[in-house]
């Protein structure tokens, strides 16, 4: 949901808040991408996400524009699949992740894209992220999915596309920035609102931290 910066902030400054969901097969690096984006950290040995994790991160697009992401980092395991609609139902944007060293993970990613395009918000911005680029940089023969193939698919399906590495921090920030830029900042229309019955208080709560966030970024 996008909303205007409340009064009191710098004139002309824009603040928007969006729901983002990460989907993809297990062990492709969804949580690692988020952790790199939100905390700029990386764990070599990360345990599987249990359930889903909810995180937020605020970025400045330019001097006057601040975007806050509310991120749902979902677990990739099959048994959590039935819960996925809950997370993408009202999402403004989605990052579908695959592992460029695992051919099957792209098939799974394609299935997610299909599901999102069919079931999610019609204006959802979807980005395809081929993660674990660092592995391929070290030994190119590990690559299972040629960049060109994935790129062609992304173009065809109308997705943003990046090959990323949470480990080396390659293209992580770029990925999220590109999503933010593609989101309709200036036209906070009804399509960006949460479901028909937004929960009470939802519009108020983010504003206070939002103000601070914007202030911090602009100082």
């Amino acid at each position: 949901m996008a909303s205007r910066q409340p009064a009191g902030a710098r004139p002309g400054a824009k603040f928007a808040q969006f729901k983002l969901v990460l989907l993809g097969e297990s062990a492709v690096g969804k949580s690692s991408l988020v952790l790199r984006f939100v905390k700029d950290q990386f764990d070599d040995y990360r345990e599987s996400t249990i359930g889903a994790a909810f995180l937020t991160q605020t970025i400045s697009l330019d001097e006057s524009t601040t975007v806050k992401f509310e991120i749902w980092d979902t677990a990739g395991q099959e048994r959590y699949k039935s819960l996925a609609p809950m997370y993408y139902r009202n999402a403004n944007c989605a990052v579908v992740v695959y592992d460029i060293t695992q051919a099957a993970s792209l098939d799974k990613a394609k299935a997610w894209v299909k599901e999102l395009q069919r079931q999610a918000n019609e204006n959802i911005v979807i980005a395809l992220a081929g993660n674990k680029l660092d592995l391929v940089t070290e030994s190119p023969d590990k690559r299972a999915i040629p960049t060109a193939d994935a790129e062609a698919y992304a173009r065809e399906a109308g997705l943003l596309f990046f090959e990323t590495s949470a480990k080396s921090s390659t293209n992580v920030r770029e990925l999220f920035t590109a999503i933010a830029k593609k989101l309709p900042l200036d036209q906070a229309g009804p399509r960006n609102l949460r479901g028909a019955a937004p929960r009470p208080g939802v519009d108020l709560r983010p504003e206070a931290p939002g103000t601070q966030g914007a202030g911090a970024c602009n100082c």
Partner: protein
Amino acid sequence: MFCPPWEAPGDRRQRFNASTLQQLLRASTSNTDCVQKRTPIAGMTTLHPDSHSDIQDESVDPSAAPSRSSTPHTPSRDRSLSIDSVRPPLPPRPNSLNLLNDETAFRASLQAEATTAVSRADIDTQAPDAGNAHSTLAVRGVPRGLKAKASLNQLASPKGSEAGDSASIRSSIQNGDIGDVEALFRDFVTAAPGDHSDAASLLHFPEFPADDVDDTGFLSEFEPVGELNEEAGNEDLLLQRWKAKQKHYLILSAAGKPIWTRHGDGGLISTYVGVIQTIISFYEDAGDQLRSFSAEDSKFVIVTRGPLHFVAISRMMESDNQLRLQLEALYMQILSTLTLPSLTHLFSLRPSTDLKRPLQGSETLLSSLADSFTRGSPSTLLSALECLKIRKVHRQSINNALLKTKATNLLYGLVVAGGRLVSVVRPKKHSLHPGDLQLLFNMIFEADGVKAGGGESWIPVCLPGFNSSGYLYMYVSFLDLRDDVDENEDISKDESVAIVLISPDKESFFEMQEMRDSLVGQMEKNGSLKVIKAAIDQGRPATTDIVPGSVLHHFLYKSRANVQFTMSSYSPEFTSISRRRRLMSIYNNLHGSIHAKNTSVKVHHCVSRSASSFAWMTAVFELYCIAEPNANRNALVQSAAKIAQWVHQEEERLFIIGGAVCAVLTCLAPTQTLTSKRRFSD
């Protein structure tokens, strides 16, 4: 059907022989008083050289000296040398006496010790399944056993004459004795030569003060065995590492598919899984159920739940019941991931279902649960929860904050500090099951999956004790209470405080998040967060804080009505993981003795070379404590009584007892206590 060589079809009869051998042995050596007293001990201690100080009967166990001299790794060798030196050297004890190391002998030997109110007849019934449990032992052991019997008689005669002389010496030197606590570690002592140094260092526990134990030996228990490389060229090495583990947990389906193993992976150990499956099904085919068996120093315990077999293999001297409890907890973890109906459904559709896939991602929960058992967990041992010690008014104000901010869809709300419960809110007619909480705390504090997420979590979880047929949804958020925050420094497990809110509604994440925000706001306002932080910083009290000058080094106290426990600080003596494990082994043994079936033991005092330990059970509480080996018994008992008194005084701070409002959980309603006992203790 493939039959392993040691599983000859006739072995049930032979098993019988093995257990009757005990009686034979006893009968054959009952001519003299002192020999009779010694016999069961000798049977047990062939594996581990020791003797027992018996507070009821100060007579001496002469078998101790020769056996000690035969085992170079005996920790207190130096101390006992002076005694040994006046004796003629005796021949090393034959290993064949292994046979006698079955549970009946072990139990029977305990009986010769400082337990009260136990008759020999009782002891024999303590291990009802000992007879059918030791099949492999029996088949191998029978011929050896005959030899053993002979040699025992040989040993007995010279020593019988000596016993009178040595009695006075031995009874006066308490810490030269090795009690059943040491026997607890007989497995370590008889471990393969390769394991010996590790085992010995773990065993070595001569004095309490220093805590300089090398943990590396025990820590290697938790290291991965590694992965097979492409040509499987390292298979032998990996199997070697796999076999070196002291403890294994395996889960396989009734159809024989490996589902999970703590060490290694299904591919590496498939042959062993096949063997286990064969053994289990051999008994199943005969309409029988194999519950446990021992092979040399390893104990195998099998629990079958629906379509799953759970197998524990332990060389860490745990009782059948304790291992069974641990396997039950693993089963609960699987239910918690899948729910009972979906587990049943999966297997009814296809009995050969590979459960690995549905369980994917929850392996780490199983592993961290298993590791906490291997390290030794008071919570599991006592089937109880620990609470953070805070003043009653403070707990009350946290309770009130929970009630005040309670969301409509909230089922349970918990404030937990490093695995210790601070406060709970629950609806009137529902209580929380300690087994469920154990699973939750394992997930939140032990396994990394939740904490590493770095944010708030929303987790579908089935609480099998509450209702095994469906999911609840759990909101978890960690609070950072530290003042001087170093961003990159991880909060240690004991310090992390979590708000856990459980709802039956899967869409209620934001509602729970809102409740969390206002709850934390309230707690900040009324100073509760500071109180919690102070309580965490203060830690558990040392025994000397409670009873100045106490001989006690550690205690565990379980309040039976509240299904909660409290304990003293691990530091300074038990901070190292292997010492803590050893402490827990002593507790395991105490707990096993006092909870043995068909006994009415109320007080159990036991002196070993490494520690004297004391268990005391009443209708209200169970108290277990450990002191130095040469601690005066009266001082020990006095301290224990003071601890019990202290806990009684501090009861409302140590435990969560019936909140002011009905909706506040008293942790467990009395009816729940019964269920929990049935589920976790038996």
